[in-house]
């Protein structure tokens, strides 16, 4: 991997994130999100050495997520998940009982 390649990837990520941030407009959110996402993606591109480190090291630093949530990535599950019953939190048990009524009727 060359520094040039890493810098190009970093710049490409910044453009991709800038576009996504523009879309997620929700009551003035866009500008703040745009700056944040861009800075994160492109911050490394000014110094080539950091750019190389950033690409790999940053990704690895975020790897901690992986074991805690498992690994799926399969096409059949693109789309919203059904909430597993065991993850119901207190907020759910406190809400109006449409679901309980429906389950009871089955």
């Amino acid at each position, binding site marked *: 991997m060359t520094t040039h390649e890493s810098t190009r990837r970093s710049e490409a990520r910044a453009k991709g994130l800038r576009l996504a941030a523009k879309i997620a407009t929700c009551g003035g959110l866009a500008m703040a999100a745009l700056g944040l996402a861009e800075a994160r993606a492109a911050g490394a591109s000014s110094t080539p050495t950091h750019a190389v480190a950033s690409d790999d090291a940053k990704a690895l630093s975020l790897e901690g997520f992986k074991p805690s949530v498992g690994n799926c990535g399969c096409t059949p599950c693109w*789309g919203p998940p059904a909430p597993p019953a065991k993850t119901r939190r207190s907020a759910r048990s406190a809400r109006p009982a449409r679901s309980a009524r429906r389950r009871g009727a089955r």
Partner: protein
Amino acid sequence: MSTLDLRRDARRDALAPLDLGDVSAADLASARSNWRERMVSEHASARVFGELVGGMMRAGLPADETHRVAEMVRQELDHARLCAKVLVAIGVEPVAELPELAYVPSHEDATSPLEAVLRNVISIGCCSETVAVALVATERELAGPRSLRRVLDQILSDEIKHSRFGWRLVSRLAPSLSVGERASLDAYLVDAFAHQVRFHAPFLDMPCAGEAGLAVGAPHGRSNWLVFMATMEDIVIPGLERCGLSAREAWREVAGVDRAA
């Protein structure tokens, strides 16, 4: 298990074969499997929008929004055809196994039809499609051949609509949720975010292509993971918070640490 065969579709307005001279054997194999998986994925995602239509009707959402979602079904099927054309241009038959597909949840346990449909809209539009925009736009920047850039431009222009649809609906409808509906939707965010991480975690095991490979669509797993994480933490979480939802708390529950702070 059935077969997705888009050979006939790929022949219509076929792309010229791409020059693959500079691409290493490993990167070429990676590009081929990526485009094949994407063909299946785009095709299968059409059903998700199809099933969203019913939920939108049950929630009494505006007819023009429902109409747009129906068009998204067609757009996703078109994306699969575009991927098929790319596959042929890089020397692969656009035929793949279509796995058994998960049902789109109707969320019987939701507090109302509106909360039920917003769960799906957030998961699809605000999360998956916003991540897709960031990923495809990144890939487009690195793409080499003009014909490939045109394909990615076409896919990207639709994914932008799909993402925008999600943000438009959530920003308009979330403020009108009752306390109970909002609490229930907040609780679902944990499931939605965990699903996002599960779905995108395979990036970390993917190979990382060189420049010539990236130019024809071979993935760079670590770079893609960075795009995913930045999209979630810097765009999706703050965006949902701005809509009045407790997204940061849900993300913290999934992540185990407060990375979004």
